């Protein structure tokens, strides 16, 4: 086998583009593996772990792109490297020609070109993200910071500045928002309506807003704050600011507040703020807790129920069985469940539902129970719910909602284990997500032994670009049992387990 590598200086492409190029190279004949990636320290670690860290790329700087291929012979290796160089060089030229005008090099210039923008959506690598977000705030722009790996210190400084200027500082690690009807990053097409959402969780926000849409409701604003906003270091600055906005927003009649449970100080500030409104507020902090007794506040830990209660409060008569699918319980070849999630909050909800039914948490890489904590998501045990979006999987690779390769690998790994009876998957549609998840999953599902039960939760709305019905149809055809509410999907999986174990 031949390994060849090349350093490409002075070029920059986003990680998704590089991933697509890597994928294209891997599809060439004679190529066993290929990676085209920025030569950052983090990425070198990844290359090392996959035995792709070759001495040739040693001199590369952090800002260089490196291409590494493993090929059957020298000629295939040479051709693949040549192809990598061509692909890395061509995209920018193509887009420039297409547009006939040059892209702005800085936020400042882009702001001028738009004659004053409203919001800056930032998804560059974490170590550069804070500085860019700061520039955007200085220009008076709202910021949605998708990037993660931003320090708490930077987050606090950015949010403090934003609050002073009356601006949104959503994130870091904010994956979802719907502002003035526009879905941003990972978000679903949701009708405009009366429910305002503030959420410290991306997929939680997606599940709730999509369910609202599916029940016939609509959303006025859906703010994401980033997962750490409720921590005492950040003090809930954005949770508070967004909540305050929704309380005063005449378009918003019902408020949804959700996320991981905030720190006690933050919580008491939020309760105090909520005491000033008579609007119905549906709260979901992802685990059971006591809330102040105030007639307009309702609490639930089910994402589906959060949406239902919000719709009810706006006067939409929802049938509690509207989203229910009556599937007969299938027979299992073995008694264990493996949940392979791309959505962190869905995984968290799964853990809670499981706990409510079995009295303890399942094994997980993200659970809170030390006795059921997995060292890493690769080594699953018994019933395991794995968040494939957590850091150990995503450093240096695109999110599993975009890139299904990791999930396909995990599906094959779990299916090969004779103890596994059910595989549970969340399939997130909407903007930002994979354009056609069924095309990735169907061939993998068809390869699985017939007796493995595959349960899919499809998180989507009618308006999403992927065509929800087509996706569901293809997954069903490949043998999957499909739900459109996660709560129901995980409950169904747990019922299957109970019945198989005779409990």
């Amino acid at each position, binding site marked *: 086998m031949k390994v060849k590598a090349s350093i490409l200086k002075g070029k920059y492409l986003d990680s998704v*583009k590089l991933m697509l190029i890597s994928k294209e190279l891997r599809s060439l004949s004679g190529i066993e593996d290929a990676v085209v990636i920025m030569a950052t320290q983090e990425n070198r670690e990844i290359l090392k772990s996959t035995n792709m860290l070759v001495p040739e790329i040693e001199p590369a700087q952090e800002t260089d792109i490196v291409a590494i291929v493993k090929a059957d012979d020298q000629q295939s290796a040479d051709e693949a490297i040549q192809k990598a160089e061509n692909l890395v060089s061509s995209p920018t*030229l193509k887009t420039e020609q297409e547009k006939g005008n040059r*892209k702005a*090099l*800085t936020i400042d210039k882009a*702001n001028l070109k738009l004659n004053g923008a409203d919001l800056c959506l930032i998804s560059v690598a974490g170590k*550069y993200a804070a500085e860019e977000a700061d520039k955007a705030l200085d220009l008076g722009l709202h910021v949605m910071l*998708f990037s993660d790996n931003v320090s708490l210190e930077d987050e606090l400084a950015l949010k403090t500045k934003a609050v002073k200027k009356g601006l949104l500082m959503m994130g870091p690690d904010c994956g979802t928002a719907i502002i*003035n009807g526009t879905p941003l990053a990972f978000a679903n097409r949701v009708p405009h309506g009366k429910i305002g959402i503030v959420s410290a969780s991306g997929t939680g926000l997606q599940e709730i807003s999509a369910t609202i849409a599916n029940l016939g409701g609509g959303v006025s604003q859906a703010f994401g704050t980033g997962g750490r906003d409720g921590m005492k270091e950040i003090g809930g600055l954005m949770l508070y600011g967004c909540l305050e906005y929704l309380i*005063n927003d005449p378009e918003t009649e019902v408020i949804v507040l959700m996320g991981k449970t905030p720190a006690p100080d933050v919580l008491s500030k939020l309760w105090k703020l909520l005491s000033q409104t008579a609007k119905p507020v549906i709260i979901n902090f992802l685990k059971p807790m006591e809330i102040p007794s105030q007639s307009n506040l309702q609490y639930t830990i089910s994402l589906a129920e959060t949406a239902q209660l919000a719709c009810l409060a706006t006067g939409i008569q929802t049938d509690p069985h509207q989203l229910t699918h009556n599937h007969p319980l299938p027979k299992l070849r073995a008694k264990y469940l493996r949940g392979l999630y791309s959505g962190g909050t869905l995984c968290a909800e799964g853990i809670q539902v499981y706990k409510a039914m079995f009295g303890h948490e399942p094994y997980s890489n993200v659970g809170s129970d030390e006795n059921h904590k997995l060292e890493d998501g690769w080594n699953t045990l018994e019933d395991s719910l794995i968040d494939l979006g957590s850091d150990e999987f995503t450093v240096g690779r695109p999110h599993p909602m975009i890139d299904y390769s990791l999930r396909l690998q995990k599906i094959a790994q779990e299916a090969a284990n004779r103890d596994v009876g059910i595989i549970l998957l969340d399939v997130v549609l909407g903007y930002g997500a994979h354009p056609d998840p069924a095309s990735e999953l169907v061939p993998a599902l068809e390869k699985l032994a017939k007796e493995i039960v595959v349960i899919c939760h499809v998180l989507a709305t009618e308006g999403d670009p992927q065509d929800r019905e087509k996706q569901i149809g293809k997954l069903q055809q490949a043998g999957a049992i499909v739900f459109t509410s996660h709560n129901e999907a995980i409950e169904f999986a747990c019922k299957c387990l109970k019945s198989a174990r005779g409990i």
Partner: protein
Amino acid sequence: MLKLENKPLKVINLGLESFADDLKSMGVKVESVDWKPPLPVDKAMREKIKANYAKKIEPANRQALEIINSGRAFLVGMGVAREEVPGMHDNLILHAGPPITWDRMCGPMRGAIIGALIYEGRAKTAEEAEKLAASGEIEYAPCHEHGCTGPMAGIVSPSMPVFILRNETYGNFTYATQNEGLGKVLRYGAFSEEVIIRLKWMEEVLYPTLKRAIGHLGKIDLHSLISQALHMGDEVHNRNRAGTSLLIRQLAPALVKTMLDPEQTAKVLDFINGNDHFFLNLSMPASKAVLDPARNIPGSSIAVVMARNGTDFGVQVSGLGGRWFTGPALVPDALYFPGYSKADANPDIGDSAITETGGLGGFAIAAAPAIVQFVGGSASEALSYTLSMFDICFGESSSYQIPALDFRGTPLGIDVVKVIENNLAPVIDTGVAHKNPGVGQVGAGVVNAPFEPFIKAFEALADELPGSC
């Protein structure tokens, strides 16, 4: 209190392009930033520069640009370096780029110095010349520090004839040798007998013939020739065919009127006609002539020199006096002639990047569609190169224009601050020398200047400003 106007969003996207594509598909107004990881420059320095830009740097740059734009370079005569070039003496050899010692010089530069010492009669053989060159007896200095510019190795030795140029607006002079043509030539490091014989012919026949003709004309307006050449497909760095032709038109009557020997005059015309790059040795000193008066304007961040010696790339900045800011010269990612590859190439070399510094060359490549294929691209790419340089220039030329851009002036006045803030290096439209002496040109292409000299200059600018970092 959060202020959010309820109206359709206009979004700036920075990072994953798919997010912008999604927004566009919904009809949202989006502008994507062509983002690259920022250069390694201290944040405090960036902030200091930013805080002072409008008040201190910008006015100084405006002044510098006005000086550059009002300069008019004329060819006013010829002479011998020993007598004309300031500071020239018998033991001095001038070279391209920033200062460098013999031990760090690249192959082509060493070869050219060996050739120059043989040409000067200081050595009979290459071995003798090399010994003398390394002995310490010979002094080396950058052309730019003696009013000169030289292509490739850029060697100027005392006996070489030079063109004399004068900026009529400011009265300053610049100098350059006569261009030898392509193939085995001194500027690529060749020193064989044919090279020395040609240099002697240039001294004994070409020089006096041209000197008489130029003397007869009094002066030739190079500013006007360059402006016309841009409208005729030259960018006067890598393509000088129009400039050379225009020069012959001006010279021809005077050559005839001052003719001593028809055979020799014909040979002179043949020589110029056979060398499309003859005009390069005028476009370079012409660029220098208009840039030099813009030196030493306190606070100005405009580059007045970019030059390479085949080892280092050097930059001088108006507000930073005669200091050189250097970094390793890069091996160009160029288009290589058949039989050659990047492995044969010498790192970037020559003072010719003075044309880019003066708003020509790569900055004006949109005017030269004929050579863009030669440098491995398309005509639209050439436009895009020129357009991109407006992002790092303080202004534009008031007289050098690009027809394809509706006669917009070329980008002029490289602003070191904009290079850093936009993370965009100047493009240089250059030839590539073989790393071994005397092989000659092995390729050509549009290459980016390295960032290191610009980062150093940026930091020096920040240091010069009042207040601490």
